[in-house]
């Protein structure tokens, strides 16, 4: 993956804050999943979150668009605080795109309809315009010719690229990825990662849960390591991989990279 490394020096990270999480805690019943999480994401940042299974990575990024509710602390996305106010939640969700491990395309709609549904109903964009935008993003993820097929007729990699295009059609300012390549065969992983890399090159703010360490090294400006619901270590990719500080991180890296 390294040969695809994007020129990080050219990437600008602004001072503007995209996501601000302060002292956030979350429980599932009695189980304390997220513990005192503090995190500031600036516009244009590309953050990779990694950690062992069950460490709360998914839960953390799902809190950012309120698919999960946090019980204490504060989450502010693009200036809007997430509370029980449905208006705020809908506002945040239309600004934040999310890509899931299992794609979650709508199987009863064609690829094009998958991509135009939310723009038409949430953004109230005329159908024609929404279709043009959709075709634009479908070409960008390199599957414009599949627009009139159903998701079930596409390969996993193609489906995941459609899912990315579907999110992009809402013109989000922040993209969340939850293990976007974990359900894919190696051949398809590359096509999805390429799509994500080109997204990063355009300056999209990205938070990405992934175990693709090559991707992290090439694209991320920051790697966050989580364990037991806490942020254990965060650093630039170079430092993180070459010079991990905590014992837990060293163990994790040796398991995932070593053998």
């Amino acid at each position, binding site marked *: 993956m390294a040969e695809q490394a994007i020129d990080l020096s050219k990437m600008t990270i602004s001072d503007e804050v995209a996501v601000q999480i302060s002292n956030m805690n979350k429980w599932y019943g009695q189980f304390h999943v997220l513990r005192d999480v503090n995190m500031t994401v600036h516009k244009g940042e590309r953050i990779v979150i990694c950690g062992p299974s069950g460490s709360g990575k998914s839960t953390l990024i799902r809190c950012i668009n309120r698919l999960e509710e946090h019980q204490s602390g504060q989450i502010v996305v693009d200036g809007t605080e997430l509370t029980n106010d449905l208006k705020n939640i809908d506002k945040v969700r239309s600004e934040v795109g999310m890509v899931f491990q299992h794609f979650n*395309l*709508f199987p*009863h709609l064609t690829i094009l309809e998958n991509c135009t*549904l939310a723009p038409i109903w*949430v953004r109230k964009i005329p159908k024609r315009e929404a279709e043009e935008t959709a075709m634009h993003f479908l070409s960008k993820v390199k599957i414009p010719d599949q627009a009139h097929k*159903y998701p*079930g007729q596409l390969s996993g990699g193609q489906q995941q690229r459609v899912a990315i295009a579907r999110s992009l059609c809402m013109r989000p300012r922040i993209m969340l990825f939850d293990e976007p390549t974990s359900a894919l065969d190696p051949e398809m992983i590359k096509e999805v990662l390429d799509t994500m890399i080109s997204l990063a090159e355009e300056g999209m703010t990205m938070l990405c849960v992934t175990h693709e360490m090559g991707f992290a090294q090439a694209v991320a400006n920051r790697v966050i390591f989580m364990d037991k619901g806490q942020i254990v270590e965060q650093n630039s990719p170079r430092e993180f991989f070459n010079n991990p500080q905590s014992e837990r991180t060293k163990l994790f890296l040796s398991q995932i990279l070593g053998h």
Partner: protein
Amino acid sequence: MTEFTPFVRKDMLEPRDPPGNQQGPIAWARENLFSGPMNTVLTLLGILAVGWLALHIIPWLMHSVWNANSLSECRAIIAQTWGPDATGACWAMVRERWHQYVFGFYPMDLYWRPTLAFLLMLVAIAPVLYQSLPRKMMWFTALYPFICYWLLWGGTLWAPIVVLAGFGLFALAFRFAAPKLGVPVSAGLGLLAAAVWWLFVQTPLSTALNGIIPLSIRDVDSDQFGGFLLSIVIGITAISASLPMGILLALGRKSDMLLVKSLSVMFIEFIRGVPLITLLFTASLLLQYFLPPGSNFDIILRVIILVTLFAAAYIAEVIRGGLAALPRGQYEAADALGLDYWQAQRLIIMPQALKISIPGIVSSFIGLFKDTTLVAFVGLMDPLKGITAVVRADINWKGIYWEPYIFAGTIFFLICFGMSRYSMWLERKLKTDHR
């Protein structure tokens, strides 16, 4: 130790056609009917049973009599033609009384009205059943209930128009309130406005309007309805009303709001736990109790409401099954895209849940349609028991037994079988998951 020769393929193989299968009836029969001793025995037993049945039924059907004025005349003809011991079917009864099976006691000179209503119904249903038809036809579908009501019951045309205005009021109230108050509250408000309109404005206004511009056709009373006219009126109305109601109940049962949830659960469990006949009996008492004194609540409308509630409870459970079969990811994707609850339900969740539930929903519909014969218990002339009793009360047809049931049963079968085939067609058409 096994030996092997290293191997590298030089040129790739081209795809070839599969070997020709053994086809033809004999191969088919060997594979499906006589594949083993057990299967062979079962096949032979089956053939015997069918043969035995045919031996008894076919002569009876072969000795059909179509022209006679009474059962005794039928029997005389059969004895004369096929010998004294022969049995035969006396279809002459159907020939003489078919119109009662179809229209009940609807005035004979007005048969054109239900007939026209039936033909228009086919036009109204078509765009619902076949999505490929122009969507504009739905406007007629929306108006059809009012036209149908007027054609069947007669009276002033102003009555259905004023009822329609009540729906307009509902839509208006909903339209204005929905952006501020949300879907459920504004739907309630609209319903309230419409109910007030129907209860207090309806009758005076339509009478007054008819006084100014009289637009009346002859009244036909509900107790003149009967036969398949009655079954179809109750069946179709209850089917079209119970589906939306079932959807709402299913959503209510899954709702986070405790009140909505417990009301839905109570309603569903109560209705499902009580036999339809009990509901039919008690409803006449209860409804009289709640309505303003003096208002005579039409018996057919009463039955339609109950049958609808009954079917809705079952359909709600069928749809709940469909909802449970949807992966959580579908809800999450809809949420993540910013769709609100009603949009997500309407655009993502329901289309898929309903598709999964088609077989169950259609089963409920078929059950509902056959249950319309239970209205015999509240004194209505259903085609199976009510009309048959009337026919048998005639001295000419006293003692006739199989023919009326076979006749009515065949029509029920054709309609229900039609529904079943349609649902299978729809399932195939909607299959987009390609798994």
